[in-house]
């Protein structure tokens, strides 16, 4: 049952073939049996999940009208506030903090009766591409436990790939939903910026952060997308417009007559041969399905990574200032006679990890008077140029595509001491965040050289998220008929190896 898609689970719940309690228990059992190998979760809310499941079953028994995913379990990235449940952001500085409120995403999940299994591991404050920066230890890739599951949302992607949960929530600032999806053979979507409320999403970089749905199929992702999307008056950057019809698009999977633009700059040198091979195959399948493949150029993408590593740390340096031991979280050095300043300093020294400190320092420097124009100011200009590149490219194509990452999953520890190499992993995902558009990653197969999953990225214009679902669903269907079975069936079962 846990290997079903979320849509299948929902159908079984609706038909009475199973109950949410049974389904939730099956996932809790799975978590119990594989979690010591995967470490996808920071907190498993066994009691809360079963209570929520029981309440959904009760509603169903009473004949109440329920939402499409009611009763299906989900793994929540630990960066979203959930009332009275630990929310650490993978950091020591928030250890023990229990939010007194629900993020809007969590409120939507609850409203849709989606059962929250617990909180998933992540790079501290979403800063990283491997989940190695979590203060609570790394998560392992179910395809190869010695490898990273991507980051920052590695806990969510690993939970999906190891069948601990059929649905997950991620957040994506520079690729933290799409890159983990790519390296674990799962699906992840970063909606248009403003499409899903950021209220209660602990901020890394406010102008780039976006929560989004993760699952094992395009349709499941779409169902979750519609459950969490929509205007929220508590988020000033939320878009007040109807939610794109992504479920319908995922069901239709129609690409006939669509123009698909291959971004010249997001391919070629630096991309692993197996990644390029799967990407080219996918293009052929889409062409066969009736799409027209064109090449587009985005000359300013070259500067995206550099600009991103000025904007994101700058905003982070300010967003993370609130962690000062005064009102919540860790407090270190509060001994007799210690000044508030000393307590703040010591708490931040002890509470933040190396990568977080690196970015706070970087951001503080970039915003300093005298350097602002050269760094933050220039980065914002680059951002405008990248947005213009997209605008132009979208006049030539309905969606744009590229490999999600240059490589498949690397080994844990391999890039831990080389931040620049780590940052390069996000080179193809970052432009999407810079322009605030939508982006999806779905599995394109396994690389011949290492047998590891390869991600295919689809990018769609602002609030045209349905387009990436159309293309994603078409590709997914073509690949499935080619493979004969879902890609994840080829992943190790984990239990057998026990």
């Amino acid at each position: 049952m846990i290997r079903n898609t979320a849509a299948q689970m929902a159908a079984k719940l609706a038909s009475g073939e199973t109950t949410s309690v049974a389904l939730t228990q099956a996932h809790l059992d799975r978590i119990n049996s594989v979690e010591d190998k995967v470490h996808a979760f920071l907190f498993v809310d066994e009691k809360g999940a079963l209570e929520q499941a029981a309440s959904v079953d009760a509603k169903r028994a009473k004949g109440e009208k329920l939402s499409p995913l009611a009763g299906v379990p989900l793994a929540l990235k630990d960066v979203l506030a959930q009332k009275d449940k630990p929310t650490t952001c993978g950091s020591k500085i928030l250890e023990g903090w229990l939010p007194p409120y629900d993020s809007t995403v969590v409120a939507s999940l609850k409203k849709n009766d989606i059962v929250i299994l617990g909180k998933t591991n992540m790079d501290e404050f979403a800063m990283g591409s491997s989940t190695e920066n979590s203060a609570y230890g790394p998560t392992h890739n179910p395809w190869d436990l010695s490898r990273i599951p991507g980051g920052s949302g590695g806990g969510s992607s690993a939970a999906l790939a190891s069948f601990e949960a059929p649905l997950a929530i991620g957040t994506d600032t520079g690729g933290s939903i799409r890159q983990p999806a790519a390296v674990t053979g799962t699906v992840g979507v970063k909606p248009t910026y403003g499409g899903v409320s950021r209220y209660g999403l602990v901020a890394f970089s406010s102008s780039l952060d976006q929560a989004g749905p993760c699952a094992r199929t395009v349709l499941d992702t779409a169902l979750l997308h519609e459950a969490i999307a929509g205007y929220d008056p508590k988020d000033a950057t939320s878009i007040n417009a109807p939610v794109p019809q992504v479920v319908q698009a995922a069901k239709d999977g129609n690409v006939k007559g669509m123009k698909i633009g291959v971004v010249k700059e997001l391919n070629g040198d630096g991309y692993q041969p197996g990644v390029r091979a799967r990407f080219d195959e996918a293009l052929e399948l889409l062409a066969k399905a009736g799409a027209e493949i064109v090449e587009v150029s985005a000359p300013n993408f070259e500067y995206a990574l550099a600009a991103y590593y000025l904007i994101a740390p700058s905003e982070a340096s300010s967003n993370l200032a609130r962690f000062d031991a005064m009102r919540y979280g860790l407090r270190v050095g509060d001994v007799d006679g210690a000044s508030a300043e000393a307590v703040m300093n010591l708490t931040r020294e002890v509470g933040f990890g190396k990568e977080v400190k690196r970015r706070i320092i970087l951001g503080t420097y970039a915003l300093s008077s005298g350097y602002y124009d050269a760094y933050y100011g220039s980065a914002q200009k680059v951002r405008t140029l990248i947005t213009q590149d997209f605008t132009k490219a979208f006049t030539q194509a309905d969606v744009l595509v590229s490999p999600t990452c240059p490589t498949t999953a690397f080994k844990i520890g391999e890039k831990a001491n080389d931040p620049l190499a780590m940052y390069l992993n996000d080179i193809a995902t970052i432009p999407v965040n810079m322009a605030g558009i939508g982006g999806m990653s779905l599995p394109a197969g396994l690389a011949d050289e290492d047998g590891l999953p390869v991600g295919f990225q689809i990018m769609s214009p602002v609030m045209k998220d349905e387009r990436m679902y159309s293309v994603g669903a078409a590709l997914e269907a073509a690949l499935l008929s080619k493979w004969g079975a879902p890609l994840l069936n080829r992943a190790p079962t984990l239990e057998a190896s026990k």
Partner: protein
Amino acid sequence: MSLTYEDVVAKYEPVLGLEVHVELNTESKMFCGCATVFGAEPNTQTCPVCLALPGALPVVNEKAIESTIKIGLALNCSIAPFSRFARKNYFYPDMPKNFQISQYDEPICVDGYVDVEIETDEGPKKFRIEVERVHMEEDTGKSLHVGGATGRIHGADYSLLDYNRAGIPLVEIVTKIVPGTGKYAPEVAKAYVAELRDILRSLGVSDVKMEQGSLRCDANVSLRLIGAEKLGTRSETKNVNSLRSVERAVRGEMIRHAELLNAGGRVVQETRHFQEDTGLTRSGRSKEQAEDYRYFPEPDLVPVEPDAAWIEKLRAGLPERPSIRRKRLQEAWAVPEKEMAAMINADVLDIVEKTVLLGADPTKARSWWLGEISRIANDKDVAIADLAITPQDVAEIVALVNSGDLTDKLARQVVEGVIAGEGKPSEVIAKRGIKVVNDDGALMAAIEKVCTEQADTAEKVRAGHIPAAGALIGAVMKETKGQADAARVRELLLGHLGQPTS
């Protein structure tokens, strides 16, 4: 060493710069829905947003934007079609996010002015204070430092934090430098803050209570030798919490600077704190190691782009400028300057005007509100506006006195009754059975009775000693329980005793 003020202004020209912070009186905070009631139990007016809990986001209070635009318009500013909030980053325990949402290089209102008039040796003179900008920001929380000698964070045993004030909308009004005020600098500064206060009050956007901190002034002062071009180094005096203090602080700083300069020293650019008790300032943080606030546009908020039609609507709804209105009313009512000032201080100008518009004589209206009603408000320790008496009531009472239906003394009883909640004036009169005895027959009976009882006094009056009539009139008034019209009693009494009545 010690200089007189005259010495200072004979040699130096002061240059002013004034920054006024105004707490808006919106019902909710700048970026969240929390209440803004003054004096509430600490930390009871807080939420995830104003406590800066992880994940919480600000949303702009539209009402605060409206108030700020009104202020900008009233100060003759241009309203920016596009402005943005910015983060001002610095660490302090009473600032929950460790950054303040403010506006930096894109304020909402720019380039305005305020004219003030002060009394000079050559008569009244007008000074124009140019306003550089008006911008929005949020207030910080309040720290209470317990223990230690100074009440400051350094040396305190511990500190208590109250975040009720955190996030209350603040508007900062910054002037351009103000040269050319010479020896009148302290008066001009005071007149400017007073004028601002009156304008803000007329707009109804703030309580403008300096003693409660809803209007706070920072005074920047520098000196240069008379005729010099280059500006001197300025000091920035904070905590100036009354109009009188504004004047004292500017004067005090001018003298302090001049003493330093005369002794060959130099003024340090720094923040200073005004001490109400001594009228002197004390050194605060030095700006020479100026903090780098790392301003950048607030990414959690969208730019403010007010619709031109909305701005015009707000402009059309602006009240008359207080200084102009004051002049107009003063002329129309023929009120002496001192009385006018008294009405402004007692905050009864609006209410008096309303009463006059309802037909009451200006002098009568003024004397009721400023006299009897103010006294009752004082006794009850409430604002005049909170008393249960309206301009309509007062206008009615004035009319009844004019028509002779009430005496002044009876009118006071009616006012008391209305305030006590006994109803409209007519209802109070009916309930209390108040009526003027203007039945001459009844009055004559009382007069005859009194003249018989006090025959000696009556005889004196009859003999032409008019002043003696006072005692008899008093007795008649007493006889009629104060319900008689004293003038009519006098008339009848004198006639009865064969004396001329005019």
